[in-house]
């Protein structure tokens, strides 16, 4: 109990801008490594995968904020917007690396991929939903939409989480343990929310 109190009072002292800055470091480093050819034998794949995986992990942290507060009394609500906006930034880089490096800006290929390949469909659906949430992640939008509507809209985070988990799960050649674990975590977080909403 004491440890969480200390954690909460410490984390409240961290300014939000510092969290933005800290979360900007991994993509900055990765992009620098890409441009200086330090990402190993398969740089495009490595960049795409790492930035996507990091964005997905941030998304899971966002989904875990409410249960962490309810069950463990850990309060990270203050940083939720920072996590969300930065997750969107990561996924933008993920998408851009796929579009520019992998597809060479070939829009016909992009469209073919989206309609033909379920894992890309799921990825694109979640990216587009993230775009809606990112542009409404400001106080003006909350005022304009009204808190109820805004909260309802931002429940989309769960759908985004599931689509992202499916995107990852359908990507590998065989059932690999990591994507299965992430998928399970997202499902558990969603169930927690449903049970809480019902009671």
């Amino acid at each position, binding site marked *: 109990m004491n440890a969480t109190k200390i954690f909460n009072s410490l984390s409240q002292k961290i300014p939000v801008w510092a969290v933005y800055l800290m979360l900007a470091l991994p993509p900055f480093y990765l992009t620098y490594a890409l441009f200086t*050819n330090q990402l190993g034998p398969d*740089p495009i794949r490595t960049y795409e995968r790492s930035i996507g995986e990091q964005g997905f992990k941030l998304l899971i942290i966002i989904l875990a904020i409410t249960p962490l507060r309810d069950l463990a009394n850990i309060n990270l609500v203050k940083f939720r917007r920072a996590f969300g906006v930065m997750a969107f930034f990561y996924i933008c880089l993920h998408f851009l690396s796929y579009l520019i490096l*992998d597809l060479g800006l070939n829009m016909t290929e992009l469209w073919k991929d989206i309609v033909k390949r379920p894992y890309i469909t799921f990825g694109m659906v979640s990216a587009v939903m993230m775009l809606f949430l990112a542009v409404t992640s400001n106080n003006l939008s909350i005022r304009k939409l009204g808190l109820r509507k805004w909260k309802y809209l931002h429940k989309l985070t769960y759908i985004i989480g599931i689509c992202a988990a499916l995107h990852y799960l359908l990507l590998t050649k065989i059932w690999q343990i990591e994507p299965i674990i992430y998928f399970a975590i997202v499902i558990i977080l969603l169930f927690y929310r449903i049970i809480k909403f019902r009671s």
Partner: protein
Amino acid sequence: MALLKDKLRYSDITPKQIFLNRRQILTGTSAVGISSLLPNSAYAESLNYTKTNYAVDAEITSKSDATSYNNFYEFGTGKNDPKNNASMMKISPWSVQINGLVDKPGDYDLDDILSGIGLEERIYRFRCVEAWSMVVPWIGFSLSKILNKVGVQPSAKYVAFETLNRPSEMVGIGANPRFPWPYVEGLRLDEAMNPLAMIATGMYGESLPNQNGAPLRLVVPWKYGFKSIKSIVRISLTDSQPETTWNKLAPQEYGFYSNVNPNVDHPRWSQASERVIGGSIFKLGSPLFSGSKRETPMFNGYAEEVANLYSGMDLEKFY
């Protein structure tokens, strides 16, 4: 002045006779095979081979990339796992069971299989089904040389291959118990007899590193990489189409033929282009950031040699 005149010669230090003997000892050792003296061959042995015309005109992938970016699930599913875990595999002694529709079936010691067959260097393109590619200087010989040695019976129509299945030395096997071990692959007999299909025992001038399929592997350059089965322990001649591992795992994604074909997409990604391993994203003369990508040619560029094997076949159906 005096120094220049009486230049020290090798023979001044070591008498010629002893010098020659030392050479003999060295060659003697290499004939036995340094690898056979060691518990495992983490150590690459340099090979004697002849150059051939099988040499694609492209930049050769660096040895470090070709030996550290591998799919060899017996050692784990990560690309670095084979390099990190494969030294556990004992490749000496090694025997290959050759059976089925052959005149001389049996358990052949590796040296017996290789005896009398000269090694050649062939620089082939290697195209993985995951849409990446390398250019590798393999050392080996046409698969047909082994098949002719054991005598293929007229009723044989296919060749089946099997990889070593030794969980105590291959950590990926236990880690993935649902995978249908051992890894198996196969070719139609006419594909196997095509001179391009080779058995490799080395690469980059040296014996094969374990992670690349030591001590002997198949290399079929016009097919996706997973057809080029590694660390072979069994070769069977059959009259019916053998099972192949990836086809068993996902039949809608990986066919028996698995010829490199830019016009037939993998259900989950396009096969029209490939990422060149070791390529930088910047390259002069290439369109925007695409220096490490290239268009994939039909049959991986070997259409002239192999297209006739498939004349009249619907390659979208027989993918």
